[in-house]
């Protein structure tokens, strides 16, 4: 017979040695915007794959909330179709789906309908009783941003956000505001109901394996950190280039532009992780403290000198003739929305003082590429006769986020022969060649992290507000100028000529990613 133990177990010893994430507590996820595109394309397939791979706890339940006329069975069928269409693993395992679907229910209501929240509360109580969700809730706002505040307000006033035992968390999709004021307003609204520790602001870029790999690359390899500073780095270029146009998102894009759509979040995230100091550990606040310090240290931008905006006209991309931005669906023929932005900035701290960072993003550029590229300074003197330092291509270290995730280092080598001639060669590491396994979707990682209460890969209040502060400064600068004669670059070009001039006046050139 088993021996009696006098003290209860403080941890699950059966988990020792399993190199797998901890299982979250049983919980109910309430998805607002349950009949929308994001739920169908990303959320439900992510939940299915988490269930398939045993990451979800027993009793995990989903309540879909939307104002679409659907019965519960119809909603489940709709979600099953979504999973069949968008799951990264195929074919869909029917028994696993069935097991997940048993915990899916649907509440039809407008997001501002007070009585609807009463029905939602009753459904959550039922799940606590019948499926053991123990008062643990994730409120996932997968709606258009204009509904965020009202949903938060109703969750607070109905008592759902605070009721009973268990943890409560809220996930907010981007865009988190559209300027500093609206972001502060939204933060204030959410804070009236939830504390900062309960808020998970998604930037799905941070859920990408390869973005996390930049942190590993920097902080798990002893050879890079000593040269990762102003003494050895000439400058850094960060590019998020897209070859696609705005597709069917004209209505949204007209109000956002490249500055809000990509610069405010993805580009500044990449800047933060490229420039940050090593955190003492990988917990949420340690990492985010360091990222925020980078944003705080950005030298005030002189918009007239340091920022270039562009808008694409008709052109050719990948052998296809494509329309200009002003000809796209739901776009004004006189639109002054930017589809390209290039920014030169400096970071005022000991590591980076006077080292320029060049950031650019745009639509309808010649290729799709996201990368952080570091150009190192040339050696001060070359001992080889008749070979000038200027003839050498500098060393580049490039961390590619997509496509072809990996890193490459450009180094000088001798061309064989009796004469000392140098040539630049590339050392390439393809992430995919060493780990040719399918990476989980960013949403799987982020949903699981949220359920485990780990906010490391989510944006914090001060981070979001700092980023918006920067965007506001640029917007204010633009407002005081007349817009450039748009369109000022043809689809298939690397932005307007002024973007080249921005970097060339410093004696540097944009990389061709």
């Amino acid at each position, binding site marked *: 017979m088993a021996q009696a133990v006098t003290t209860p177990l403080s941890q699950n*010893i059966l988990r020792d040695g399993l190199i797998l994430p901890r299982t979250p507590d049983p919980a109910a996820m309430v998805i607002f915007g349950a009949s929308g595109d994001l739920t169908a394309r990303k959320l439900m397939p992510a939940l299915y794959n988490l269930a398939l791979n045993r990451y979800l706890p027993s009793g995990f339940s989903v309540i879909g909330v939307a104002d679409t006329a659907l019965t519960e069975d119809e909603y489940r069928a709709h979600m099953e179709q979504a999973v069949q269409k968008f799951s990264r693993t195929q074919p869909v395992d029917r028994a696993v789906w069935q097991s997940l679907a048993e915990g899916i229910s649907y509440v039809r209501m407008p997001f501002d309908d007070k009585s609807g929240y009463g029905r939602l509360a009753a459904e959550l109580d039922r799940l606590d009783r019948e499926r053991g969700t123990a008062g643990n809730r994730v409120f996932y706002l997968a709606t258009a941003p204009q509904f965020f505040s009202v949903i938060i307000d109703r969750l607070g006033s109905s008592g759902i956000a605070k009721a009973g035992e268990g943890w409560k968390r809220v996930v907010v999709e981007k865009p988190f505001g559209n300027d500093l004021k609206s972001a502060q307003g939204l933060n204030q609204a959410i804070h009236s109901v939830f504390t900062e520790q309960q808020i998970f602001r998604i930037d799905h870029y941070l859920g990408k394996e390869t973005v996390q790999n930049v942190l590993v690359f920097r902080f798990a390899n002893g050879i890079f950190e000593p040269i990762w500073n102003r003494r050895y780095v000439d400058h850094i270029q960060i590019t998020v280039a897209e070859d696609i146009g705005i597709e069917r998102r004209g209505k949204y894009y007209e109000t956002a532009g490249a500055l809000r759509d990509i610069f405010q979040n993805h580009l500044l995230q990449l800047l933060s992780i490229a420039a940050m100091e090593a955190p003492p550990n990988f917990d949420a606040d340690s990492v985010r403290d360091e990222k925020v310090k980078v944003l705080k240290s950005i030298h005030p931008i002189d918009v007239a000198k340091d920022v270039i905006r562009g808008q694409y006209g008709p052109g050719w991309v990948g052998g296809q003739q494509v329309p200009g931005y002003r000809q796209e669906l739901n776009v004004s023929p006189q639109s002054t929305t930017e589809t390209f932005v290039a920014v030169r900035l400096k970071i005022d701290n000991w590591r980076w003082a006077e080292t320029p960072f060049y950031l650019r993003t745009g639509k309808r550029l010649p290729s799709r590429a996201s990368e952080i590229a570091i150009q190192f300074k040339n050696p001060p003197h070359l001992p080889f006769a008749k070979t000038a330092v200027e003839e050498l291509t500098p060393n580049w270290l490039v961390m590619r986020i997509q496509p072809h995730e990996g890193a490459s280092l450009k180094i000088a080598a001798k061309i064989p022969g009796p004469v000392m001639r140098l040539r630049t060669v590339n050392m390439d590491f*393809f992430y995919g060649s060493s780990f040719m396994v399918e990476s989980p979707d960013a949403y799987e990682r982020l949903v699981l992290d949220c359920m485990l209460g780990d906010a490391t890969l989510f944006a914090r209040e001060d981070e979001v507000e700092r980023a918006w502060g920067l965007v506001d400064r640029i917007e204010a600068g633009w407002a005081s100028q007349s817009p450039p004669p748009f369109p000022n670059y043809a689809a298939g070009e690397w932005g307007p000529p002024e973007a080249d001039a921005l970097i060339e006046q410093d004696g540097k050139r944009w990389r061709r990613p």
Partner: protein
Amino acid sequence: MMQSHSELSARTFVDVHAIQEELDQVRWGLHDGAGSEAAQHAAAEARASVLNLIAVVGNEPELGEISSVLDRLSITNPSRTLILLAQHTREADKLEAQVSAQERTESGHRVSTERVILHAHGEPARHLASLAAPLLIPDLPVILWWPGRPQFDNPLFDDLCELADRLVVDTDEGFNDADLTRLLEVARRPKARASIGDLNWARLIAWRHVAAQFFDMPAMLGRLAHIHGVSVFHGSDGSTAQARLLGGWIRSRMATVGIDVPIEFRPDDSLEHGVRRFLIYTGGDEGPARFSMIRHRGGRLSTHIRLGDQDVAERTVRLESRAIEELLSIELTLPGHDVLFEQALEAALR
């Protein structure tokens, strides 16, 4: 996924220096006659190699099977691979090496690997480790994969263990208690000591994961301290090492907090091979509970919790039926000694 696979070259050698030279040639695509586009690509990019892998096979048919497993493994683990076909019982001395380079493309990624097949008869077959050692890529871990039951008494086994960082076997391949004991000795001996990986242990990951998940739930964790028995139902044909290891695992884990768990093994002719059901019984002040996992056809595991006479939670998850190369791949990514495995093995033998 788009896949392609091509063999860039294959030549036969007998001298270690010639083999080394040929390996360099194929590694960097430097062959005069290899001006093909594939070879140029191979030369143009740095090679990603993550390990050296030595596989030992007993006969020619096995060589074919193992080669195809290694082909598939190279997608996730680009490596320098040495396959040793050591037939010391065949009389006439013989030593022959075949060097080849493979290139695989999958979803736009290209992986290039080199392979050496060393075929020896008679006395050279006993000393193949001396030929293998200089052919390894420096500074990368050496994994020795011995399919089937290792020849524990063959000096080649010890020589290769001396060379290797990790020995990978499959205890499902007819390992009896004596074999399991020998295996544990290899992990614990002072010389020619390698860490042990077992494909059968990798097959148990899902069972261990799901069993642990029961007690991740805060409401259930307290019950784990009141575990009073475990039943393992398994097919009765072939090796029972898998069931033994699972029982050994829970026994060894609970022993760390001073709890001795009685394990009941229930072999059943009507069940398919391997573990089919795993039941954990707990008692204590909170009343009796049963945590069960049942394996179903089609790669699924259903889990149930019964508190008293009430079923409270059920779910179905995937129980992957993993191919040998996938199991190997798991074992290749585990660092150093797998203390948990060694403790489970020890508890299974008690």
